């Protein structure tokens, strides 16, 4: 039966199991929007800025594991998606971006609201399409979802000229894709797995670095089996945080620039690094020259191009993390690594993360951000999805919340996109309405996408927002303090009263200035059956420690200066 391009698109999305689309309309997508009422199964959420649509779809994708879909009109609408697409690309999140394009006869003529969005997004998508024939649309959607969700997940963009949306074509949804140039390897090479097992069985100081690949592949059980059977301590990357229980005795926490001192020490002292579903990002490795100097490296990843890209691997295994770990676990022998583990315990004891309770106690009435994060943990007992902003708030959320639930941490890791927090939290909540979703926002980042409060209110999306309000672009201020002679050039923010802003959006909120108000405020937010905003006025010049200064290796991890307060003058 013949259908219009717009109908074919909707039918195809439904075939792919899409339930929600985030977007904003405009001339070049009007034919698509005009068909939405024919397909009530597709819920469209009208955002306030296309960047919000992309982040929301990304947050949805990360929380559910399914592709998230966003849509924008041609030109400015499409261009506004770009930050969100780049962000999803860096963190391997399956995003489908649909853009309207000017009608075919106008392409290349600099027509009104024409932008070469396939050209613009070439380096930040796994693939993209300009559809020039309605008869190609169903096949294109099928391919796009397949490419976005298999292998290493990633964004795919589909650009559809307005007249293609109106053109009629026969609708047949293909049940297979034919992509001769697209392949990915799931099974690890048996010989490599055997070599890796041998290296693991022989190691005396092994350490696992767990990355987001474990979350994507849902290899939680397999990872746990490996850790426990061979008693291998584990550190994680920022995005690998919720791949392994945070309260497990063998979990040493995050490594890297703001990792725990003992995680970094473990990596520097290890004789074997087992890197799983991670890509040796510079924030995790610090200077690669001094990275894990005594270790052989096993690198497991589904993307062959990650092997030897940043850190050379002694034993590379290309494959799906879950499949590879299943096979690997068969060949691993039980070990106890008593000496190594007791060494690590000693380091953990000697070089602890600052305990937010103790820190607050020492520092009297000051409201410390670490304490706020810890109280949100206490209130939720880890049964929540935490979506963070970028900067200090992100690092404190990584360090002081204990992630006991798989995939409970969502953050803009690779691109470090301020403004991700609010729309991504909204997307996560839409995807997982049963979950408690907390948005940990920076006062700077929050104002980059603050307008999504409108969407949240319109949809009554019950996210709980905690602004870590330090009155600064805090992380940048920290760099100025430590590396630019304390010259705070343009990092101080004049902020509005965020509670009043929330009220203007008909969202209740509480401003919190004192320690003793934290717990009741968090409880109130959680009890409220809708979105709620907490504005925590925290100590303005608090710093994130430990810290590896830029350019140094993990061996140069700076710990908390004695009596935190002294550093802050």
């Amino acid at each position, binding site marked *: 039966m013949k259908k219009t391009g717009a109908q074919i698109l909707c039918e195809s999305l439904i075939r792919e199991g899409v339930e929600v689309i985030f977007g904003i309309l405009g001339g070049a997508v009007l034919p698509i929007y005009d068909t939405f009422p024919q397909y009530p199964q597709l819920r469209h959420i009208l955002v306030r800025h296309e960047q919000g649509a992309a982040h929301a779809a990304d947050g949805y994708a990360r929380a559910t594991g399914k592709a998230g879909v966003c849509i924008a009109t041609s030109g400015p609408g499409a261009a506004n998606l770009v930050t969100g697409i780049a962000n999803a690309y860096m963190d391997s999140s399956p995003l489908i971006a649909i853009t309207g394009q000017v009608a075919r006869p106008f392409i290349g003529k600099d027509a009104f609201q024409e932008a070469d969005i396939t050209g613009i997004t070439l*380096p930040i998508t796994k693939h993209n399409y300009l559809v020039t024939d309605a008869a190609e649309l169903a096949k294109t959607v099928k391919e796009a979802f397949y490419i976005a969700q298999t292998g290493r997940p990633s964004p795919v963009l589909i650009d559809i000229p307005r007249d293609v949306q109106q053109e009629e074509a026969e609708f047949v949804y293909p049940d297979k894709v034919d992509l001769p*140039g*697209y392949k990915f390897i799931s099974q690890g090479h048996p010989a490599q797995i055997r070599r890796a097992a041998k290296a693991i069985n022989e190691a005396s100081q092994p350490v696992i670095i767990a990355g987001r690949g474990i979350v994507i592949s849902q290899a939680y059980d397999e990872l746990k089996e490996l850790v426990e059977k061979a008693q291998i301590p584990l550190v994680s990357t920022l995005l690998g945080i919720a791949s392994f229980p945070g309260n497990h005795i063998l979990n040493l926490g995050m490594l890297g620039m703001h990792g725990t001192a003992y995680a970094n020490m473990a990596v520097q002292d290890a004789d074997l690094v087992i890197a799983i579903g991670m890509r040796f990002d510079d924030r995790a490795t610090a200077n690669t020259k001094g990275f894990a100097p005594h270790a052989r490296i096993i690198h497991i990843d589904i993307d062959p191009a990650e092997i*030897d890209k940043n850190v050379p691997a002694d034993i590379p295994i290309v494959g799906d993390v879950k499949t590879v770990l299943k096979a690997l676990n068969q060949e691993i022998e039980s070990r106890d690594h008593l000496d190594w583990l007791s060494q690590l315990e000693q380091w953990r004891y000697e070089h602890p993360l600052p305990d937010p309770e103790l820190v607050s106690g020492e520092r009297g009435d000051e409201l410390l951000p670490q304490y706020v994060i810890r109280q949100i943990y206490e209130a939720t007992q880890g049964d929540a999805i935490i979506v963070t902003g970028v900067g200090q708030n992100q690092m404190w959320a990584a360090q002081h919340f204990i992630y006991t639930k798989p995939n409970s941490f969502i953050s803009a890791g690779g691109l470090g996109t301020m403004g991700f927090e609010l729309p991504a939290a909204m997307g996560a909540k839409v995807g997982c309405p049963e979950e408690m979703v907390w948005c940990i926002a920076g006062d700077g980042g929050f104002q980059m996408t603050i307008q999504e409060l409108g969407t949240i209110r319109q949809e009554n999306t019950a996210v709980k927002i905690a602004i870590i309000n330090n009155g600064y672009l805090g992380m940048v201020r920290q760099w100025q303090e430590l590396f630019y002679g304390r010259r705070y050039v343009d990092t101080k923010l004049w902020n509005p009263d965020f509670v009043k802003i929330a009220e203007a959006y008909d969202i209740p909120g509480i401003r919190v200035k004192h320690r003793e108000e934290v717990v009741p405020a968090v409880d109130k937010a959680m009890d409220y059956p809708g979105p709620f905003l907490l504005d925590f006025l925290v100590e303005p010049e608090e710093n994130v420690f430990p810290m590896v200064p830029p350019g140094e290796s993990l061996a140069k991890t700076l710990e908390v200066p004695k009596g935190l307060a002294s550093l802050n003058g």
Partner: protein
Amino acid sequence: MNSNTKHTLVALVEDKPGVLNRVASLFRRRGFNIQSLAVGSSEQPGLSRMTIVVADDSTVVEQVRKQLDKLINVVKVSDITDEDTVARELALIKVKATASTRSEIIQIVDVFRANIVDVALDSLTVEVTGDEDKVESLIKLLRGFGIKEISRTGRIALTRGA
């Protein structure tokens, strides 16, 4: 392989709009240095064969190969540097020629088994095919007469036999 030798990559790519752009964009964005890139249709309908010459150390070239392989429109890519290959390049060289130098140029062209493909009052256009060394040597010899223009295709290559 020692570092910074020339590597020849051969890629079979889908013959679709924008594919060359995808390849070029990848090289630019990852900071890979292409020495030459030649593309034309292959024996298979719908597929083109690209020959890409990259001068870099082996780890970088391996990274180039893997990144190319990730492009959806690239069906197959191999580094044939260490294989037994036939590699050729074609160059057109427009060289100044006067009544007195003309016959000398023609002699040199003959030695190189090259062809004169255009004759004008004050120039000759020479077509030469061969590996880069041969093309380079001819150009070097013709320099003395004054070269007006050069156009080179860059290397194309196939593995031998089979």
